[in-house]
């Protein structure tokens, strides 16, 4: 038995013991852990191939041609190959747009709304693992909506998925390991950025210092140091950047920046911004998972019990979607979530469970070292989390500006969710993914409150846009017909039987 790739929804069963959402390192590791126990497992993923953003397009890329992606990328080959050889159902290009408690029967489980190939279906699962990954923290600077201003992750995806490198003058701006890693990959691919504008706070390393011993003992240290040294000796590296502004007519042409009291300008055909990775929360949030504020990473994450189980029965999180900690950690948390799901399914007795968890928990502790130092050192500057200039766009979709958000807060919008109704901020197609944290940070600062107490936009289903055609393709249940026609009419009954 090998993997079954399901390209149409018709190939799927109506219910599963375990549905895993996401085929990045966490989702793949969870599947590998769960499948041998004999439970029925389905992996749903939005992308065309397994690997997530970290190992994106790994199955398509030839190692000899894509060597510049580095050993941390190619390490994923073992995981992806093991997954491809594992007897599991895998549906690529499948978008999950809802997750709710089920409604019928004594064991209703969970209901997962998914669309693939223009059709939609509701599947049932007894357990769900959300391995949704991370997204980059939005970096709302003036001009960030101009074409040619992208996130560093986008530069990396272009490199991984299509072998594309930036042409012309490319400027990297922000801070964090991923920015320097991208610079290193671009150098290895023969495309030197024209500058790195580093926004790390100069005194920040002092605050991170108490956590230094952890970093020295971690795998990150030498690897990170090597990348940093290479980048800093090969690319003009401008430290202490306090403000940024992308300028241009119709597209980005220049990047203005301030160090100390002085503004300078660089020509730029492409600007790649980055200030850290935060959990992608749309589906876990919409499912009702309780969220908590992580003050070191300045982000919300689903509250869980250490093995990934959230406040919603049957729903677990794993990987960066649970707490941002990188790909290796994602594999470990994916496995832990699977073990806990197997235990909940009655497929693993407590003694065996403890035995399987022990080495993983040890690994977790080892991998955690070094992370606090990096989180503190690269904690983004307030000016890049809370736009000081009133005219800076906060919500890209609805073009809501910082000044408008500040006025709505001053007017008394009780929380981020009410503020949506004041301004439509966060109500465009991205559903707040690129403004939610900014709004929370702005409200917390203006009211001198803890961001955790302010809260964050509650995502609503469908968490990804689906067409009316897809909605209409959902099987018409008796309940749905009653909801539409107002009564269980003979017509409704006949339609149900026709289906």
């Amino acid at each position: 038995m090998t993997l079954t790739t399901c390209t149409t929804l018709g190939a799927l069963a109506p219910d599963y013991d375990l549905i895993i959402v996401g085929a990045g390192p966490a989702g793949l590791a969870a599947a590998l852990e769960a499948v041998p126990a004999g439970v029925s497992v389905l992996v749903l993923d939005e992308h065309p191939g397994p690997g997530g953003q970290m190992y994106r397009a790994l199955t398509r890329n030839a190692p000899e041609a894509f060597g510049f992606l580095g050993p941390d990328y190619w390490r994923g080959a073992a995981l992806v190959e093991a997954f491809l050889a594992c007897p599991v159902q895998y549906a690529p290009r499948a978008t999950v747009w809802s997750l709710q408690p089920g409604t019928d029967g004594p064991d209703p489980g969970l209901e997962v709304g998914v669309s693939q190939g223009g059709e939609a279906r509701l599947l049932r699962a007894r357990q769900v693992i959300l391995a949704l990954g991370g997204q980059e923290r939005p970096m709302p600077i003036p001009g960030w909506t101009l074409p040619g201003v992208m996130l560093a992750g986008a530069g990396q995806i272009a490199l991984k998925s299509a072998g594309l490198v930036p042409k012309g003058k490319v400027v990297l701006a922000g801070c964090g390991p991923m920015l320097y890693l991208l610079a290193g990959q671009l150098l290895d691919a023969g495309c030197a950025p024209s500058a790195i504008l580093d926004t790390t706070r100069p005194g920040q390393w002092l605050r991170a210092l108490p956590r230094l011993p952890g970093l020295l003992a971690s795998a990150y240290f030498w690897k990170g140091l090597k990348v940093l040294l290479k980048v800093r000796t090969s690319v003009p590296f401008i430290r202490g950047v306090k403000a940024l502004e992308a300028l241009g007519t119709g597209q980005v042409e220049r990047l203005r920046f301030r160090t100390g009291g002085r503004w300078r300008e660089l020509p730029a055909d492409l600007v790649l911004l980055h200030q850290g990775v935060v959990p992608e929360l749309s589906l876990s949030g919409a499912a009702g998972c309780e969220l908590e504020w992580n003050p070191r990473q300045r982000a919300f994450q689903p509250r869980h019990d250490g093995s990934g189980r959230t406040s919603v029965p049957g729903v677990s999180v794993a990987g960066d979607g649970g707490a941002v900690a990188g790909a290796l950690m994602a594999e470990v948390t994916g496995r832990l979530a699977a073990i806990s799901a197997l235990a909940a399914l009655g497929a693993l007795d407590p003694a065996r469970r403890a035995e399987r968890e022990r080495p993983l928990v040890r690994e977790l502790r080892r991998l955690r070292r070094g992370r606090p130092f990096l989180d503190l050192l690269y904690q983004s500057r307030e000016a890049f989390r809370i736009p000081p200039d009133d005219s800076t766009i906060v919500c890209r979709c609805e073009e809501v500006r910082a000044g408008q958000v500040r006025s709505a807060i001053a007017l008394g919008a009780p929380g981020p969710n009410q503020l949506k109704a004041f301004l439509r901020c966060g109500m465009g197609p991205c559903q707040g993914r690129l403004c939610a944290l900014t709004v929370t940070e702005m409200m917390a600062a203006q009211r001198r409150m803890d961001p955790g107490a302010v809260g964050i936009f509650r995502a609503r289903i469908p968490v990804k846009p689906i067409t009316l055609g897809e909605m209409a393709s959902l099987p018409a249940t008796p309940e749905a017909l009653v909801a539409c026609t107002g009564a269980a009419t003979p017509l409704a009954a006949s339609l149900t039987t026709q289906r």
Partner: protein
Amino acid sequence: MFLRIIEPRETLTFTFDGRPIQAAPGESVAAALLQAGVRVFRTSVPGGEPRGPHCLMGICFDCLVTIDGVPNRQSCQVDAAAGMVVESQHGARAVEWGERP
């Protein structure tokens, strides 16, 4: 804005606003457009501002285009295919009241 450093063994052709675009099989529409020098994919709904891809991973919705007549497709999430008709979008999409079967 982007340059291909690895030449694909085979290419396919689709059109963007009538102009032929070469893509490698398995590549997204957005990647192919960026490589062909396209910067502006659409203009925004509220202000008519030019927009192009920001995240390339399906979360920002700034790379929306019309593909084979279907509006608001995320070009970074759709594989390029031979003969595809891709068009830029300007402002909001209207509901088309056509004669559909």
